[in-house]
């Protein structure tokens, strides 16, 4: 018994001592912001990074331009470029670069560095390199002028503000190669430098005192991107104030989190949207009327309200509502079982063939529940739906080949840089070998409109929008997909923060603009 007591007493004293040290050690704090991130940074090379790295990238690196949130007075905020213009033929973009800027490693920022960064990203052929495909010549006529020439008229201003693949980095650092970056190194011009990377634990950013944008007393000196994989753990950290932001916010948790003292939780528009692509070559969905019938069997309102817990809007066309080029005048798809019955009867497809397959990512509750709802509605109209849940790699490779492709394929899409043609080309432009055009859709009239719109994006955006509007109406008339949800991003953070701006162009927090109110 004595031994037991002694051991128990010993353990207790260790625990008490440890907690005392922890509590007392936590007192001397610098002005630090903490973001609970669901995973660790993988690709540190700014030419390659293409995932949650963006949380770090926007604070450490800068592109030539930042894209402003929808509804702003101007479309861009100057970053490393102070002014820019495009030639009359739309083939040459001239950027005047900011003077007196240095990279974190002390190298000067100039036109040669900007040219080297973009060219390196192009030749690496990884991540988002393809955004620069049209830029065939980059020149640095003087220290602070950059000229980008393109084969066809191309919106280089939009491309230069991409959240991936458009960052400018020190040429000296680039010489050290990807392996150097991947040890947790960085050399941008942004407000924060990478101070530390503890693999699997955290990334610590520290203020770059010589940042050209300057500093105020209220700015955070330090930003910790802490790896916290579990949702319940993130929520506890937010409640206690240990984290200022969390990255996993389940749809059904938003309302209850928002009621907690000191926490704000809400949803903001994003550029992500979800649709079921309908195979246009495989029977019975090779029949246009049959496809149109399917689009009437989707209960749009219920899916958005109940399955997405209101954190989505019914989509109108393929371009989401918060993206330029969205057209509110398009005729929407509607839930109408009677109309579906009528179209099915008119389609000429024999009733015994009213069977379709539907593939989706099985791990997603939203996909699963909306597929089940669709299956039931279709049954009421006499259409049998076979559900094929699976893992993305598998369903994607099945959908690419016509022999194994399903009639309906789940898809969630978002653009690499702010342009509507990302959807219009990526999902529906004719492909010799299907990659993401999983409707296997081929329509020369549509292709022509999209190509014309793309050529106009840089020079006459209003004309481009008109072309894209026509193209989208063709997609709706041809019923190539069930366009059902513009997804909102869910945010949960401490209430005492100011300077936050919802911007669907970047899936990250710009910490230099944010401060704590108390």
């Amino acid at each position, binding site marked *: *018994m004595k*031994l*037991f007591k002694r*051991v*128990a007493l010993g*353990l207790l004293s260790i*625990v008490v*001592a*440890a*907690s*005392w*040290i*922890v*509590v007392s*050690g936590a007192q001397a704090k610098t002005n*630090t912001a*903490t973001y609970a991130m669901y995973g*660790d940074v*993988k*690709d540190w090379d700014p030419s390659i990074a*293409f995932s949650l790295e963006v949380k770090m990238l926007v604070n450490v690196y800068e592109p030539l331009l930042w894209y402003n949130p929808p509804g702003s007075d101007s479309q861009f905020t100057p970053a490393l470029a102070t002014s820019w213009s495009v030639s009359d033929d739309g083939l040459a973009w001239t950027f005047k670069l900011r003077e007196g800027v240095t990279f974190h490693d002390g190298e000067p920022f100039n036109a040669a560095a900007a040219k080297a960064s973009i060219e390196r990203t192009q030749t690496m*052929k*990884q*991540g*988002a390199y*393809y955004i620069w495909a049209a830029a065939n010549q980059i020149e640095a006529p003087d220290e602070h002028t950059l000229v980008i020439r393109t084969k066809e008229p191309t919106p280089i201003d939009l491309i230069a503000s991409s959240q991936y693949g458009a960052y400018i980095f020190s040429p000296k650092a680039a010489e050290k190669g990807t392996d150097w970056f*991947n040890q947790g190194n960085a050399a941008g011009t942004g407000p924060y430098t990478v*101070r*530390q990377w*503890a*693999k*699997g*634990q*955290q990334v*610590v950013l520290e203020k770059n005192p010589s940042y050209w944008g300057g500093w105020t007393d209220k700015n955070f000196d*330090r930003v*910790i991107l*802490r*790896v*916290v*994989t*579990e949702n*319940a*753990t993130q929520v*506890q*950290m937010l*409640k*206690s104030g*240990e984290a200022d932001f969390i990255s996993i916010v389940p749809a059904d948790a938003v309302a209850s989190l928002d009621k907690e003292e000191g926490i704000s939780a809400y949803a903001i528009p994003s550029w992500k949207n979800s649709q079921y692509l309908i195979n246009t070559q495989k029977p019975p969905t090779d029949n246009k009327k049959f496809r149109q019938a399917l689009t009437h069997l989707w209960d749009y309102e219920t899916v958005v309200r109940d399955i997405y817990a209101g954190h989505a809007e019914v989509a109108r066309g393929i371009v989401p509502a918060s993206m330029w080029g969205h057209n509110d005048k398009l005729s929407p798809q509607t839930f109408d079982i009677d109309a579906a019955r009528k179209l099915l009867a008119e389609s000429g497809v024999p009733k015994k063939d009213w069977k379709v397959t539907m593939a989706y990512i099985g791990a997603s509750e939203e996909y699963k529940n909306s597929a089940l709802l669709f299956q039931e509605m279709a049954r009421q109209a006499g259409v049998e739906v076979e559900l094929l849940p*699976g*893992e*993305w*790699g*598998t369903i*994607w490779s099945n959908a690419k080949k016509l022999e194994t492709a399903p009639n309906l394929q789940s898809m969630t899409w978002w653009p*690499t840089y702010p342009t509507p043609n990302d959807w219009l080309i*990526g999902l529906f432009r004719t492909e010799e*070998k299907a*990659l*993401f055009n999983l409707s296997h859709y081929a329509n020369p009239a549509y292709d022509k409109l999209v190509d014309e719109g793309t050529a106009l994006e840089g020079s006459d955006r209003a004309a481009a929008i008109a072309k894209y509007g026509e193209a989208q109406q063709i997609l709706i008339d041809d019923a190539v997909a069930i366009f059902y949800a513009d997804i909102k991003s869910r945010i949960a953070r401490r209430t005492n923060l100011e300077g936050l701006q919802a911007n669907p162009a970047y899936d990250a927090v710009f910490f230099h603009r944010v401060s704590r109110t108390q």
Partner: protein
Amino acid sequence: MMVGILFGVLTVTFALSRVLPSSPIETMLGHRPNPEQIEAARHALGLDRPIHEQFFLFLGDTIQGDFGVSLRTGQPVIEDIFDRMTATFELTTLAVLLVILIGIPLGVLSAVRRNTVLDHGARGLSIAGVALPAFLIGMLLQMVFYGGLGWLPLQGRIGAEMLLDYPFERVTGLYIVDTALAGQWAAFGSALGHLALPVLTLTIACLAIITRITRNLMVEVLGEDYIRTARAYGLPRRAIYFRYALKATLIPMLTVIGLTYGFLLGGSVVVEFVFDWPGLGGYVVGAITKNDFPAVMGVTLFLATMYLTINLIIDLAYYLVDPRLRVS
């Protein structure tokens, strides 16, 4: 024998990674790969070669200690394993020590005071430890000691700013040792505090086996003639229990401790996940969910080797504790 088992593990993990209907390409390339990139990635991973060729390549690389590059972290798997092994080692070793320090005395006491309140209490505790899943114990402890009382940290291995403000050199990779060596007591306290809840969770989860086995073995031994003789001689009770009786239970006990330790090395997965412990467990969970097969195979092989090594050490320890084995 060890080589045979390891070869078996290698073959099974390889087969599984190739049979499963998922492709690691998406993990590698992000959400928008083009055909050129897909082809290049397939080639780089050797997936375009015949399956038997892939197996021999994999075997050859593995024997040379090359487990490939993790698709998820982009780092060599062997480096990832060594980075994270020390974290798991620190966690599980402390848990095993605690299990031994609490479990054995508790088992002895339960045997000596059979059917008393203490015995029933210990049994209740053991059953609870076995019955409650580890993640639930972990989350309950988090709610009480972090959410409710605010005494202990919630997750991670050390306070976020400790690593920066109280730097210490990485000598052993064990934070409590390295911080102590560097004399950074604030960081030491933080590391210890962060260890408390995950170690406690693992301890509660594993306590039952050791306590119950000690108790049953002791009950058996206490009925032996030589114990009665020792009692008759009037030897102090503590000497009888701990010097004579407990010694006789050491061989089966060693086996159980070895198995527990081996189990913890691989089985701390859930606890590491709940506490964001940057160890092998959290690593392998992430790898499995992302089809990161080089990492999965590397960790499986590594854990199999560790498990076998522990068993070997336990076998050797038999000779130490039992002189009869040395004679035969």
